[in-house]
């Protein structure tokens, strides 16, 4: 297989980069080592589009955050991904923290963040009535928003695929050789040749860079643990609520999600194992002890699940994104160290990298690029008349599989048969929300397994939760 560009890593950065590249007359491959896209840092993070006042002035983080946040609404519109511009509040609980708000405000101003305002106690209470009485003031940033990171990534992959990108999953890059014109990538799916490489391998981006001799950075995996709360808590807050930031990041936040749940977290702990996404007792205890400070009426008893994610933090002193051609090889382009605000920055990083590759290769924009990913059917959001019309067209939308989230068989079939379709249970869950609700797939799990097996022509004991050995059941009973 021969390509102009191979993007390594189908997280949100890789996916949006591949989609931007597919605007040009280039042969693009998007390589992902996992069984599905969006399985690394993209799978589990705070799902926030930051306004952009956190990063130091003049950094790539500051630049791409503000640009990416500005691009996010239109990207989400084209890809039909729910995006809610709900705005964020950094809440101060002490006089010292009130001073920090000023610092954040001025930093944000220099970064180009529009329309920020420091709110006093009364204004804060008006905007967020459930806020704790111990809150003194807050920094209001109206451009912040929420988006589902894996939905955005899946949509971007599907759109890239429709525009000619080859999305190869279970395709782990083992080594890279270069003959000056083409890189040869040894992968678990065979040999792949590409003139250019974009390294968007997340926590493994240092390992991939080392394959071409670039050892200029190391990734230190940084774990963050979260609780996801039942939808019944969602009416208690309407904005993203940060604490004042510390050295280890933005602290434990509380935010609505686009799907109507409430998210509490993350912790921030540097770890050794890049694939360790286990939650810990200490981490979860830390989230429960801190999460509800902003909104005392929220109870973690309503948690429906907990999870942890890994951020790709670099050991470089400047603590910035590493974006651009490697010093070792001008055709190998890094998009590494993409920790927060990586999701917010991804649309801008993707555009920047695609334009860079286009300039290097002299590729022209395609006439027939279709920027739109059609909106998937979302039965639960429809009214009775829309549902009636939908089921009349296709009866399979009349059969509810997931009762907690009201997901129909038709939607699950759409998810399986889309260009970058679901191949396992978690894939169906991320694409349709089947199993995402309060029973956490207790009832629908076995039905989803059955449908996957039927549609993929497999036995049900070949169906996995997320690839590899993560089978659901073993052999037949005696």
């Amino acid at each position, binding site marked *: 297989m021969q390509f102009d560009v191979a993007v390594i890593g189908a997280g949100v950065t890789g996916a949006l980069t591949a989609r931007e590249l597919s605007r040009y007359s280039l042969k693009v491959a998007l390589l992902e080592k996992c069984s599905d896209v969006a399985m690394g840092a993209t799978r589990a993070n705070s799902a926030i589009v930051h306004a952009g006042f956190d990063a130091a002035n003049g950094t790539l983080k500051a630049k791409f955050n503000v640009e990416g946040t500005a691009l996010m609404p239109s990207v989400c519109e084209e890809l039909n991904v729910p995006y809610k511009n709900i705005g964020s509040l950094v809440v101060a609980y002490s006089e010292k923290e009130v001073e920090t708000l000023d610092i954040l405000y001025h930093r944000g101003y220099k970064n180009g963040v529009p329309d920020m305002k420091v709110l006093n106690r009364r204004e804060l209470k008006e905007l967020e009535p459930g806020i704790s009485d111990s809150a003194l003031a807050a920094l209001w940033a109206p451009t912040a928003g929420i988006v589902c990171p894996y939905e955005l990534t899946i949509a971007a992959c599907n759109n890239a695929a429709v525009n000619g990108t080859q999305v190869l999953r279970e395709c782990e890059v083992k080594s890279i050789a270069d003959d000056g014109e083409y890189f040869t990538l040894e992968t678990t799916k065979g040999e792949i040749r590409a003139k250019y490489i974009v390294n968007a391998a997340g926590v493994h981006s240092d390992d991939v860079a080392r394959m071409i001799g670039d050892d200029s950075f190391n990734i230190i995996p940084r774990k963050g643990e979260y609780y996801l709360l039942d939808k019944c808590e969602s009416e208690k807050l309407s904005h993203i609520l940060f604490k004042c930031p510390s050295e280890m990041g933005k602290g434990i936040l509380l935010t609505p999600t686009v799907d109507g749940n409430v998210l509490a977290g993350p912790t921030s702990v540097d770890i050794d194992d890049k694939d360790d996404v286990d939650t810990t*007792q200490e981490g979860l205890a830390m989230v429960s002890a801190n999460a509800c400070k902003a909104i005392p009426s929220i109870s973690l008893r309503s948690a429906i699940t907990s999870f942890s994610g890994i951020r790709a933090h670099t050991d470089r002193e400047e603590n910035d994104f590493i974006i651009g051609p490697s010093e070792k090889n001008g055709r190998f382009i890094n998009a590494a160290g993409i920790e927060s605000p990586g999701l917010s920055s991804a649309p801008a990083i993707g555009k920047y990298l695609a334009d860079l590759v286009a300039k290097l290769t002299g590729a022209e924009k395609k006439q027939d690029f279709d920027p739109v990913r059609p909106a998937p059917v979302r039965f639960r959001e429809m009214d009775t008349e829309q549902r*009636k019309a939908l089921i009349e067209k296709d009866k399979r939308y009349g*059969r509810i599989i997931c009762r907690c989230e009201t997901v129909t068989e038709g939607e699950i079939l759409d998810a399986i048969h889309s260009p970058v379709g679901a191949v396992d249970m978690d894939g169906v869950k991320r694409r349709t929300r089947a199993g995402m609700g309060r029973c956490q797939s*207790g009832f629908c*799990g076995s039905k989803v397994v059955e449908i996957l097996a039927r549609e993929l022509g497999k036995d049900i004991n070949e169906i996995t939760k997320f690839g590899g050995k993560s089978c659901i059941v073993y052999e037949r009973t*005696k």
Partner: protein
Amino acid sequence: MLNYDLAVIGGGPAGMAAALEAKENGVEKIIILERAAVLGGILEQCIHAGFGLHYFKEELSGPEYAHRFIELVEKTDIDVKVDTMVLTIEDNNIITATNNTDGLIQIKAKAIILAMGCRERPRGAINIAGSRCSGIMTAGTAQKYVNIDGYMPGHKIVILGSGDIGLIMARRMSLEGAKVQMVCELQPYSNGLTRNIVQCLDDMGIPLKLSCTVVAAHGKERLEGVTIADVDERLCPIPGTEKFVECDTLLLSIGLIPENELTRMAGISLDRITNGAVVDEYRQTEREGIFACGNVLQVHDLVDYVTIESKLAGKGAAKYIKGESFGGDYVETKGTDGVRYIVPQKINRDTDCDVNLYFRVGSVYKGAKLVVKCGDNVIMTKKRPRMCPSEMETVTIKKDIISSLPDGEALTVSVEE
């Protein structure tokens, strides 16, 4: 729009018994809406014996128990729609449901019986730290895989929670050749029926570890083991007592939650303890003409009691449809001192029947008494050799006592040691 006298949501043991009783009491047009492909509810996967000892005075398997009712339903003109999910109940008793043959259906019913059953608490409800690998599932899900689909959900198994489904699955998996390492129970007592402890664990040589829980799950892809730990009297894990137990499957039997999404949607308030609707002696909710019975109302230990309760709801719905309602002057019931809740939560003062109060105690009692009072006035005391939270208790109050109770005082049941 379809018109019915009575719509029953749920075709498990509760829904079927309620529909049949309503029919027997003269209700003409009845429909049962069932989300699974067949009637019978969860009984269809409960292939073990032990059902019907109270109601039929013989020991049946789950499917046998269900089929007695399925046959009776088939002999009547009760309409049944399977594979049909109810989406909404609106204010005017209009039900919207969907399936893949009729599409979206709307049904207007004079009365509605809610019989949606319950679901198992998932992992998220108790927050076991560690991996989100495969191999962690509720005991009921595993029961479906092994009994209905015919697949082994695991080979080396740890069960958390000694609820009845967990105990039954401990035996079931052992009989299928799996190694059940242990059953861990957070409480200092079992949450299952005594007969299940004896028949499912003791007889199979499976250890029951009380005051013990699973604190972490390990495994990158499939589960490889769990960390268990002892807990203190506040049920918190005791540091230093952690032990690794190898297993490829963790089954959770950590409690059941009535499935009251539709009830809530219908604006009916729920009892904080039972998580089911607040009802009167005929299981009528606070919305006139809407009744609830079975595990959606309160989690039962025995299906026999589900049947008995559901017949009350069926009879109540028939009375309502025929316009034979009561005055609406209620005596409230209240569990105190060791009694966690009582169903029904209120009784019509002018009721026409003796009323059984169903309730659970909060901990294990030996040689204690149940005391029924109204104000300071003791109505009855009953000695009980043993009471525990996992076994539902009942006392019967005669209707003439109910009608003679003074105004403004609640009927209370308490434990006296």
